[in-house]
């Protein structure tokens, strides 16, 4: 179970108090009624699902109730940081992205099986 730092409560609290809210920094177009099908598709349907660093929304739903953003490594589940909603996306280009192999197979270590 994750331990999540809430930037409003200023402490780490159990995952039980939180709800995940999908990718962060996807702004609803202010002219949404007028955007094209492709723009709507990008806004509403398409996500990157990266292996490694992801910026995502959480809500401290059973705590302070606030939505906030967090940067998490999807492989190790480590949080790099969390920050308040509305704050700019932090530049974490220096953070190493995950390289951990989830399953060590013969193929991964030795190439194709004979």
């Amino acid at each position, binding site marked *: 179970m994750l331990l999540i730092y809430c930037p*409003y409560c200023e402490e780490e*609290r159990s995952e*039980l*108090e939180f709800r995940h809210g999908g990718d962060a920094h996807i702004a609803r177009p202010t002219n949404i009624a007028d955007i094209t099908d492709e723009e709507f598709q990008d806004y509403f349907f398409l996500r990157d699902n990266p292996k490694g660093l992801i910026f995502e929304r959480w809500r401290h739903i059973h*705590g*302070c109730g*606030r939505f906030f953003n967090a940067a998490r490594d999807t492989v190790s589940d480590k949080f790099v940081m969390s920050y308040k909603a509305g704050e700019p996306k932090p530049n974490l280009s220096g953070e190493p992205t995950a390289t951990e192999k989830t399953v060590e197979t013969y193929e991964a270590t030795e190439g194709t099986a004979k």
Partner: protein
Amino acid sequence: MADQALRKAPLAGRHGGSAGARVTPAAAATRLSLRAGEDAIGTLSLAFGLELPRRPKTSASVSGRHALWLGPDEWLLIDENGTDLMGIASGVSALHSATDVSHRNTAILVSGPDAAGAIASACPLDLGNTIFPVGAAARTVLGKIEIVLFRSGEEDYRVECWRSFSPYAFGLLAEGAEDAGL
């Protein structure tokens, strides 16, 4: 004119717990869900006669009236004397939202040396003395439900929950109290 309708508390008549942690329903109280921005805190504090807390997980109490910090713009006000809190709020012109939740919530008091242990049977908060001292308050979970936990004394906790969840909360706390007392 019809007879005046009588109140019926959701946990009327219940008792439970152990020697180390007594679990009892709290008396009726008036409650307010108070929402306001930074600018209004001063005015509202004056009106309610206590300093609305600005720090997470803290509270302010003056003679039976408590203001619990729930979020950066949210407080739960509880008045054990039954004062009309909505009436006070309606006199404040500073921008805020006040909603009466006196009947939405009910409270369970958990008291005694094993009170923290009883609550820890179902609540993931760290209740250590330095981390959750007297006066600390937080919205959190108890088993499968949401609660607001308020430490009103060294060995005294107030568990606020929505009324329909209160039998579940009471049962859980009673079981927790029995186990904590072992």
